[in-house]
């Protein structure tokens, strides 16, 4: 498929898919708690409502950071689906996250501040594994380019089982789900009030939500890449992994940041680095 076509499809369809995934997440979580849960389209109603609310802020410039967070997340996903260098994609996402964190710092309230610090610790926790995933894919397919990895013959998850498991562990952090929802509790929870998103309202909050949808689709796309040689299985596995993430979210309680950091890095070293060592010995 033409990369430009993929890019356009991503730009248009990703928020729809991301919103549906978020709605499905809330409904499944509710069912697990013996409740009915909101309609699947609820996230869209939420964003629509937020868009029309008054925009309150502590400092006007905090919203500019959020705008660029959204733009850069979209850019990241666009890069990924257009098929370019995986390392560049990771660094673009890092830049986007930095803008988000700086916006929370700008808001200068205790809750957003601690949320920002914890978000940085979370980033420090998952970054090594994410980079090792890209490195692992390179070692298995000899290319960093997403279109090259996607068109590689063998199923990557067979060559990279450790990396895959480590990556799924990190997804728990990246999707901001228990046990690692340290920086901004999702919807029903209130540990730091709203953590990093505390001081944002109206359109800025809507933009954060939309950025999370784009990011979700990008991350599930990456899971798909592990199974790229049989695309349908890839889509199924992406949804299965997402379901697994939701299940873990409902089963576990939140951990402290020290535990989150330590466990992530141990998983990275054992599973991720172990896989890399095996691959380098095989060469």
């Amino acid at each position: 498929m033409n990369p430009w076509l993929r890019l356009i499809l991503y730009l248009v369809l990703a928020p729809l898919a991301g919103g549906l995934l978020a709605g499905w997440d809330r409904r499944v979580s509710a069912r697990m708690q013996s409740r009915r849960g909101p309609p699947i389209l609820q996230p869209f109603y939420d964003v629509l409502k937020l868009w029309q609310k008054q925009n309150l802020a502590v400092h006007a410039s905090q919203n500019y950071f959020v705008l660029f967070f959204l733009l850069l997340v979209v850019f990241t996903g666009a890069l990924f689906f257009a098929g370019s260098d995986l390392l560049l994609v990771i660094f673009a996402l890092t830049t986007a996250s930095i803008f988000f964190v700086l916006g929370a710092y700008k808001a200068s309230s205790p809750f957003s501040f601690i949320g920002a610090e914890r978000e940085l610790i979370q980033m420090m926790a998952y970054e090594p594994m994410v980079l090792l995933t890209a490195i692992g894919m390179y070692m298995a397919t000899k290319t960093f380019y997403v279109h090259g990895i996607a068109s590689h013959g063998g199923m990557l998850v067979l060559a990279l089982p450790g990396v895959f498991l480590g990556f799924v562990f990190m997804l728990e952090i990246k999707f901001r789900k228990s046990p690692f929802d340290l920086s901004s509790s999702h919807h029903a929870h209130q540990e730091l009030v709203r953590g990093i998103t505390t001081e944002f309202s109206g359109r800025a909050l809507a933009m954060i939500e939309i950025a999370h949808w784009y990011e979700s689709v990008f991350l599930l796309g990456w899971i798909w890449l592990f199974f790229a040689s049989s695309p349908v299985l890839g889509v199924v596995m992406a949804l299965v992994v997402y379901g697994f993430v939701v299940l873990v979210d409902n089963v576990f309680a939140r951990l402290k940041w020290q535990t989150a950091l330590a466990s992530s890095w141990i998983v990275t070293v054992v599973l991720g680095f172990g896989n890399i060592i095996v691959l380098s010995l095989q060469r």
Partner: protein
Amino acid sequence: MSGITKSPWILHYDASSCNGCDIETLACLTPIFDVERLGVINTGNPKHADIFLVTGAVNEQSKGVIQNLYRQLPEPKVVVAVGACASSGGIFRDCYNISGGVDSVVPVDVYVPGCAARPEAIIDGVVKGLAVLEEKHKRMRLAKEAK
């Protein structure tokens, strides 16, 4: 359909309540009543909320807090007074430390009577609040277009 009534996010504040109404309010979130069906989320953050749900009568300490929180709610916003004490001061109306119900501090849109107010009544009150929200939103939009 503006979407504003399909996603009412609530800020729940206990002014000086005995917690009876608070327990009933939180019961609305439980599986038996499950207000999340209506899209209701209990956010603890005024900047994210549409509906300001207050229980309990207003005393000196809670007066400033209610004003602060009310200021930090973005428009359009709705105040729902839950329970007899929030509506009018209830059984504590003549106490020296109570200034009355919530309407002695901020304008109230919906009064939910009861001591303690029942969850069904609270949900009814929130739904009525949604109608007021829709009304305020229309007025806000017209005012913006007029400018």
